[in-house]
């Protein structure tokens, strides 16, 4: 429960910093909390950060695309704040830190982890956005 509230705050407050519309703030928070719960749960089960990020990015993209359809806004509004906890800023930061402190092995490990997580997130987004693009194009054809 504590983690859920923290993850909610961790997406709700950056959403204020990114200046999204008031009525969407709460939903951005919900989206981020769902993503973090998925990430944390799968990380505990599988002990694999890259796999966990992959599933979490699928969940986040799916939720934000659905919310974007419901509230009629671009999906970026929900996507960006909720991906913030999962985007590999922290492993990348540790990579640089370890290089400075001359722990090259640790730096390599963290750097590869950062690249892996970035790739996993990319493919998560790709999977969902391709499906939604297909649905949208079908809908447009039937309308025309």
């Amino acid at each position: 429960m504590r983690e859920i509230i923290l993850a909610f705050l961790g997406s709700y407050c950056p959403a204020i910093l990114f200046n999204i519309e008031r009525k969407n703030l709460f939903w951005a928070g919900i989206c981020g909390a769902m993503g973090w719960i998925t990430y944390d749960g799968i990380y505990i089960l599988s002990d694999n950060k890259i796999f966990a990020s992959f599933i979490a990015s699928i969940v986040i993209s799916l939720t934000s695309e659905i919310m974007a359809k419901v509230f009629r806004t671009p999906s970026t509004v929900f996507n960006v704040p909720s991906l913030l906890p999962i985007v590999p800023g922290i492993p990348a930061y540790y990579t640089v830190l370890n290089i400075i402190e001359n722990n090259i092995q640790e730096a390599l490990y963290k750097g590869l982890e950062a690249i892996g997580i970035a790739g996993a997130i990319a493919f998560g987004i790709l999977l969902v956005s391709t499906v939604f693009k297909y649905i949208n194009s079908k809908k447009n054809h039937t309308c025309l």
Partner: protein
Amino acid sequence: MVINVEVKEALDVALLSGEILLTSGSEIYRVEDTIDRICNAYGIKSECFVTPTGIFISGWSKDNPKESVSLVKRIKSRTINLHSIEIINTFSRSLQTKKVPYDEAMELLRGMENAPYFPFYRRLIASGVTSFAYAMLFGGTAVNGIVAGIISMLIYASRDKMSRVILSPFFLDFVWSFIAGLMAIFANRFIIPIDINSVIVGSIIILFPGLAMTNGIRDALYGDILSSQARLTEALFTVTAIGVGVGIVLLLMKYWM
């Protein structure tokens, strides 16, 4: 040579919308889509090429393809303002059903620059709570969270005041992370014992290039390889600047204390 006024006006509206989108931190495909949509709505043909640092458009009217107008806009600063993206998105979609005259459209777009923003104290509190939440998520206790929150609020306030000073953004990131590291160490030594790692990570989370990273990934997925490289490099430089800032503090601590 006579410039085709109709084409020029349509391109002006498209260029300004594109500029607002790009400076607000939009993806490239959205900027190109919006420009195309606006040009279509005004009934002209156009071709555009957008990178994170500039927009190039040229347009010509359907009945006279020989007289084309080209505009170039250099984009210097990029911030994050998702609200502007939303407004421009609705504006360009509404153009398709109802054509807005040139003056009205330009007025609407110029007014965007002083669009509603959250009041300063709310953004300040938000930055504090963000750092609090992340310091605790990454394995700290409540005390660590509160210290991280205070440090990040100080950084956010001074960053907001300093934003008019023209310095390289990477250098500023370096300075802020250096100061964050310094404050964390001082807090640890003189005020209350804390877990330095989680406090520093929590307090510099507001400096991280999260949007540049996600946008870099998304641009690549939509085929804008050039822009994706630019954004990922920007993210890499920012992270390096942050890491170096904190790293220097930690090294100094090792040798002095």
